[in-house]
Each structure stands twice: as C-alpha cells, then as structure tokens.
C-alpha cells in the first residue's frame, strides 16, 4: 500500500464499508428547469448536477455533421468543490480528458442519426467532490439524458473499482483514491454488458482485474435500479 494510511482495518474500510459495498446514492431528475433534461446525484459525499441541452443547431457551423448529431460534453469541477485548497477555475487537462471519454460514452448510447446537423450538449458540474466523480457524473448524466427524452439505446451506469493492498474494493472515495494501489473507473451498458468507458492505473493482476469487473457488474444492478427509480418517480409526483 502506498503511504502510511491504513485504509482497511478488521476487514472494514475507513467509512465502515465492506470491500464490495457502494456508497449511498440518491438521484433526482429535472433540477435545471432551462435544460431539456437534468439530474442531480448525491453519491456518498459527491454532489453533481448534469444537464442536457439540445438537440440544437450545431454551432459554430463547421462542427456540424450532416449525417448525425454531434455530442459536446463538458465535465468540470467547481473551484470550491474539493476539501483541499481553492481550485483553478476552467478546464484543466484532467477535465479535458474526462470530458472526452465521457462524451464518447454518450456518443455510443444516443441514437445520433435521428438528429443530423445538430448538437447535443451534456454538462456535468461537480459542486462537491469526494472521489469517483467521473463515474458519478456519467451515472447522473445518463439519467438526465433519459429525462430529456432524447432516444438512447441503453442507460449506462458507471462506478470504479480498485485495490488496497491485495484486496479488491468497489467505489473508491477520495482518500482511498489517493492512497490505493489501483483505480479503475468503468462504464457499462447494462443490457449487453458492453464496456463503454475503461480507465485504470496502478497495479492489477489478471485475476484482480477479473474480480474488479465482477464487483462492478454486480453493483451495476443496484445503480441501474436507482437510476430507473429516479426516472419513474419524476412521473409519480
């Protein structure tokens, strides 16, 4: 284990979770009235707003594709969102990369050819962060997208798995992310089990990778249910 912080004690993690436990997740839809669709997620101590705009005319014009809609995705952390010092405003390299891979997830699920020449904007604003914000952001944006009515082929979920010592754990929080031996955020289409986002760094044996993927797929059932329940409850209020 990196550093000298004991992340697992007597089989339990610092916040009392077992290795395969998720943090509590709450999702609410239609929190941004001016958006086509939106959602707010509380995932442990993470708080994230996702909003969908469009399909609108793609601007500037040269970004338009005559055959299909283009997806423009922006993931950003608010400068006040972390427990450490004030962050710099605007896009850093990390945010550029996360925006890119997140946008690619949604290019996969949106039926883009139904809206040629248009753009669909996905905004993910992290207002409080505690590790795993890209996964929580994707899970939240998927609900926002479904709430927008834009046709999609599946409702992706995302969660990360990792490793502390030789123990594979699910859903790393900030301190675990900082001191763990591996971190692997993954997004999956639940119907087909296709992997649409995969990143990893640290060290994993093939066996640990397989175990981590199994934890992610198993937890996906819970996450998918929370996503669906949020969408259903917007019509039952």
């Amino acid at each position: 284990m990196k550093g000298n912080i004991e992340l697992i004690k007597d089989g339990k993690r610092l916040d009392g979770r077992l290795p395969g436990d998720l943090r509590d997740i709450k999702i609410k839809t239609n929190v941004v009235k001016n958006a086509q669709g939106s959602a707010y997620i509380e995932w442990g101590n993470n708080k994230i707003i996702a909003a969908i705009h469009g399909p609108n005319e793609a601007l500037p014009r040269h970004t338009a594709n005559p055959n299909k809609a283009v997806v423009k995705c922006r993931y950003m952390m608010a400068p006040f969102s972390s427990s450490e010092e004030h962050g710099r405003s605007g896009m850093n390299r990390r945010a550029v990369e996360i925006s890119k891979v997140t946008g690619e997830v949604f290019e996969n699920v949106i039926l883009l050819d139904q809206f040629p020449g248009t753009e669909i904007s996905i905004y993910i604003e992290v207002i409080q962060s505690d590790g795993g914000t890209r996964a929580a952001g994707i899970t939240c944006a998927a609900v926002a997208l479904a709430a927008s009515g834009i046709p999609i082929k599946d409702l992706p979920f995302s969660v990360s798995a990792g490793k502390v010592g030789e123990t594979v754990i699910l859903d790393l929080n900030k301190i675990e992310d900082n001191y763990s031996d591996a971190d692997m955020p993954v997004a999956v289409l639940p119907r087909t089990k296709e992997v649409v986002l995969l990143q990893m760094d640290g060290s994993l044996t093939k066996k640990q990778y397989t175990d981590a993927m199994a934890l992610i797929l198993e937890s996906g059932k819970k996450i998918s249910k929370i996503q669906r329940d949020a969408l259903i409850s917007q019509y039952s209020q």
Partner: protein
Amino acid sequence: MQLITNKFLKERFALGKRDDDRDPMTYRDIKLTLNEIPNAEGSAIVEIGNTKVLTGVKVDLSEPMSDTPNDGNMTTSAELLPMADDNYDVGPPTPFGVELARVVDRAIRAAGVIDTEKLFIEEGKVWGVFVDMYILNNDGNLFDAGLLASVAALLSCKVPKYENETVIREAMGKLPTKNITTSCTFAKFADNLLLDPTANEEALAESRVTIGNDEEVIRSMQKGMSGSFSMKDLDQLIDVTFEKSKTLRQILKNNTGD
C-alpha cells in the same frame, strides 16, 4: 478521400485482410534510436511503421508537489505537430493530444518507472522531469509509440548535479529508474480486433483500447472512441498484451542495456 479509403478498407476487412496485410495481432516493424538530441538529458525516437515519435526529456530544478514533499516530479506533454498529419492544426492542444499525454503520463507513473524519491535535493527543492513527446509523423498507434519513446528516453536519461546552488549539466549521473512499462493498443472494427492500428484503421475503428503492463501486472488502461468492448474482448486483449509486451520490453532492454 477518407471515405474512399474507408470503403476500400471495409471491403478488405470483409475478406479478413488489414490495411497493410498484417495478421490481426502483429506489430509493424519497430525501430528505436536513442540520444538523437544530445542537448536533452534523455531522448529517443520510436518508429512503428510510418509512425514516428520523438521524446525529449529535460531535467530541471523544481518545487515538490504539496502532497509529495520528498519526491521529484514529472510532467508529460504531447505535441501533435501540424507537419505530422493533414488533420493536425496549429493551436492549443486538442482533446486527443491531452488524452495521449495523460495516458502516457499515467502509464509511466503507475508502473513507477522513475524512482522519484531519489530526485529529492533539499527541503523545497527536487528535480522535475519534463517528458515532451513530439509527434513527427502520424500513421496510427501514437499511444504505444509515445510510451515506448518516453520510457526509452527516461531509461537513458541523465540528471544534472546541484552544487552551491547551481545546476551543473556536465558530468551528469543517471536518472534513477526502478521499472519499465510498455503498452499494447488495439482497435476494434466490426468485431475485428487489431493490434497496432494504422491511421487508416483508426479512422475506421469504432473503439480503441490501450493496455499498459510490466512483467507481472496490468499498470494502466484506457478505452477510447465511441464504440465498446465486450468483457470477452478485454479478457483476450489483456492476455495478448502480456504476450506481445515481451518483445517490446526486449527492444527497450537491447537498446538501453537495462
């Protein structure tokens, strides 16, 4: 033009043939040249087929990061030179350029290539290692070429001396390293999985995945593009990576003597 190429390639894929007639799981010829830039503390050029990446490494005095006060630090960047591809333009880094730099950066960090603890000088002073990838010609698979060039440049990299508050760049020592890592990148097109895709194949691909490893463990992964991979695909590609990386590590060892 790309549309015509795509159509041609699709027809060839249907016949089980690649852009350049390779088997699906083989690399193009790989050539590594070290120390082409004597003014840089470390440098390497990697050619994979027509892809050509130059990595130059400079080592300068630097302040440690606040969370690692006793460690040296590393910064990685990628320049997609406009000369390297019709599609590259002058201007700030594109999202792809940022992704390339960060994927290579994470691979090097996760594998612990640099022994950063040994780059400590005195309180508040450490060596900073600047890894700059120059893409000289793009014919696909910049991830593997970029990582190979960067690791080779680090393995042959020197560190200046620091005496009486001055940096002395003559009679330098070797950069302390403790591991080597390489990556294998695959593209997927209509259920074909292809190692080391060319630029034409990348233009046609639905998805891409880069798997970095050392002799024992997976060190880094990055899936890119809007397509997907099945769990079975990924399983197979991890196994192929462990197999193919032996050759890549051998190329590094043969050239750097590590």
